């Protein structure tokens, strides 16, 4: 499991500064979700078997977090799965269900603490 990015207490902003830059708890700038690593919510992780994978990309279609990492050839004609972005994968298991049973290139495994 990748080490979560530490957010040190004394580096966080105080309320007075926040009231100036984000009144009403708005966040200046978009998108902001990439800054929030949801991978640490995970209790189970999908394991990808590259040898079994046919790169049908059904997992990529269904992944709600866009955590299936792809490599796209320069001419844009060949798209291949290259792994799972564990910074954002919440371990929901949808990719495992989406993977065709005959292929079975994805499997859930308990997250190790």
């Amino acid at each position, binding site marked *: 499991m990748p080490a979560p990015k530490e957010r040190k207490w004394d580096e*966080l902003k105080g309320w007075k500064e926040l*009231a100036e830059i984000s*009144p*009403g*708890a708005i*966040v200046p700038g*978009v998108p902001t979700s990439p800054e929030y690593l949801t991978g640490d919510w995970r209790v189970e992780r999908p394991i990808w078997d590259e040898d079994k994978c046919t790169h049908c990309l059904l997992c990529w279609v269904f992944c709600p977090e866009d955590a299936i990492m792809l490599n796209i050839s320069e001419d844009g004609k060949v798209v291949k799965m290259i792994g799972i972005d564990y910074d954002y994968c919440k371990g929901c298991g949808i990719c495992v269900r989406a993977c065709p049973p005959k292929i079975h290139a994805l499997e859930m495994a308990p997250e190790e603490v």
Partner: protein
Amino acid sequence: MAKRKTTRMALTGNEAMAFAMKQINPDVVAAYPITPATQIVELFSKYVADGEVDTEFVPVESEHSAMSACVGASAAGARVMTGTASQGLALMHEILYIASALRLPITMCVVNRTLSAPINIHCDHSDTMGSRDAGWIQIYTENVQEAYASTIVGVRTAEKANLPVMVTTDGFVLSHGMESLDVFDDEDVREFLGQRKPLYNVLDVDNPITVGPLDLQDYFFEHKRGQIEAMFEAKKHIYDAHREFAEFFGVELPVFMEPYRLDDAEYAIVVLGSSAGTGKEVVDDLRDEKGMKVGLLRLRIFRPFPYEELQQVLGKVKYLAVMDRADSLNTMGGPVATEIARALYHFSERPIIHSFVYGLGGRDVPPENFYEVIEKMQWIAAGNTPDRMVTYVGVRE
């Protein structure tokens, strides 16, 4: 302060608030009808249909949606108003907190009506008292003239403080009671309010922002603390808005409270809304006919709570009766009594306080209620201790 031109009209509270909304000409009104506030938006929708306002009127399918639409429009920089009562306000409850935390200056006309059960359409203050921790500024009005003026100054207050404002009238007593009042010219109202200057604008594509994001253990408290500070600062904005209103229109409104014959009072009554008029009559009688040192304080703004101002006017009173038209079901009486006790406990000079709950579900509030309250306070002054911290007035035992 030169007085602006006024026109004398005869209007009910609902008509007066709808008329004020017409003059304000908000950008967006989203509302759902509910007794006894229905007429406000019903009349306003006629102004829309007749082309007398430029408002985008959104007839939504519930009060939850009404407040949600108001939040969206206000976050896009619009001047937004709505109206509701009772169960409708209760259905808005979760969105009320979002409006205030997003610092959106929505102005809402609320006609006070009790909450079910049993079902009842008449006046008490349990609806807005139930919203007292939602972060809204709350203005309770005594008569139709004040309801009209408070709707206008409410918009200015909201937009100065960048916090939402409720302006309330007592259901049926004011909402359906016709009074003569002086109204300003449309042009003057529009000139006074000018353009809203929003804190942020969700539709500003050059400066994109995220509104209402997830905010967890690391930052929620800091954001909430900022909102709380906005309520501390709101006091100044409330005074400024009322001063500007007085300077522009030449008409002075009481701000947080209206003291009535309190200067040397040993006994005092605190009350909100239309009942204050009856109370003043009783105070006059007790003072002028019976020589009692009695006064009354009408609390007009309940949020933010004016604890310092209250101490100044009530600190020297010996026996204080706080009359609530709502009960907190906490076995101590009404919310105003609880908060005044907390406010005055902070100071060494403070009266003996007793809570009175009256007029629930629109029960008539005759002068006898006030005489009974003063008699109870005299009984306490004679050295008696009540069994309970609250007495119920005008209910059959």
